[in-house]
């Protein structure tokens, strides 16, 4: 394996970390759909902590190794249309994911606090883990990530 093979490998592993984190959050959202139980949400917060680490590593890894690859491989250029599209999709997906993650994270922290204090239910938690703004951000971010994957595989115009 030469350097470019290693960069590609790290780029793909980062993409797996990023999409894997999105999947972790989706499983949590589906599992906690509409719940007002603070202890149920608090229980799953440790799963979300792994997701948060993976999404950070995956986001940074995909862009760093992706741009490095576009510069390093002779067949591609950083100004190729599909590369620029990928960077724009990445930036939008990361920002929307960050906003959704902040709303879910705040609700999770609140649930942990209430559970520790002995409060069993919370309308704020129920609202967030239902059809909320956080869900809209997460869904939009996920759609952009899938479009990013399609762009990476089909490489339109390459």
């Amino acid at each position, binding site marked *: 394996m030469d350097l470019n093979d290693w960069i590609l490998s790290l780029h793909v*592993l980062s*993409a797996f970390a990023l*999409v894997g984190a999105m*999947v972790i959050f989706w*499983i949590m959202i589906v599992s906690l759909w509409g719940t007002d139980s603070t202890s149920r949400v608090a229980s799953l*917060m440790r*799963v979300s902590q792994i997701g948060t680490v993976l999404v950070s590593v995956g986001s940074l890894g995909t862009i760093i190794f992706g741009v490095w690859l576009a510069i390093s491989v002779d067949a591609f250029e950083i100004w190729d249309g599909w590369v620029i599209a990928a960077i724009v999709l990445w930036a939008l997906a990361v920002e929307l994911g960050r906003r959704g993650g902040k709303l879910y994270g705040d609700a999770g922290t609140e649930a942990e606090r209430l559970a520790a204090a002995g409060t069993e239910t919370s309308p704020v938690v129920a609202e967030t883990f239902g059809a909320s703004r956080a869900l809209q951000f997460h869904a939009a971010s996920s759609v952009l990530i899938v479009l990013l994957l399609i762009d990476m595989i089909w490489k339109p115009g390459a």
Partner: protein
Amino acid sequence: MIGVLAFSRPEFPLFLHVFGAMILVGAATTAVVAQLAPGVVMGDGDRMRRFSFRTLLFAALPAYIVMRVGAEWMYSKEFGDSTADDPTWIGIGYITADIGALLLLIALITAGIASRKAKYRLGKASGVVAAIALVGWIVAVWAMSGKP
């Protein structure tokens, strides 16, 4: 028409394979963390064993099938007519996929029993088995992308 074009291109099986594998890795990670991470709230054990079992059943297993269908489809398109030996990375992919399938089934069955009968150690064993499968799949991702 667009659908027909998309299905006739060799990229579609690759997309199916990669997307399925990504969901499989995310679902397996979720199940492993749920089984092996220490509880924070009273009554956590039963809840997390059930969560882990359902994640393996409704997310990891279907994702594995999608990943495997994509792999076979792509293999038949890329190497179907070839009589030469497969490259090393294909071999790594097949070994990790086959052993991973067996480990996934063991983890799924043990998680189901652990969830139904509230068996703490069986739940942990399910998490360890799923973690071993997960490590194998990560090695497969490295081999598939780096092609050593």
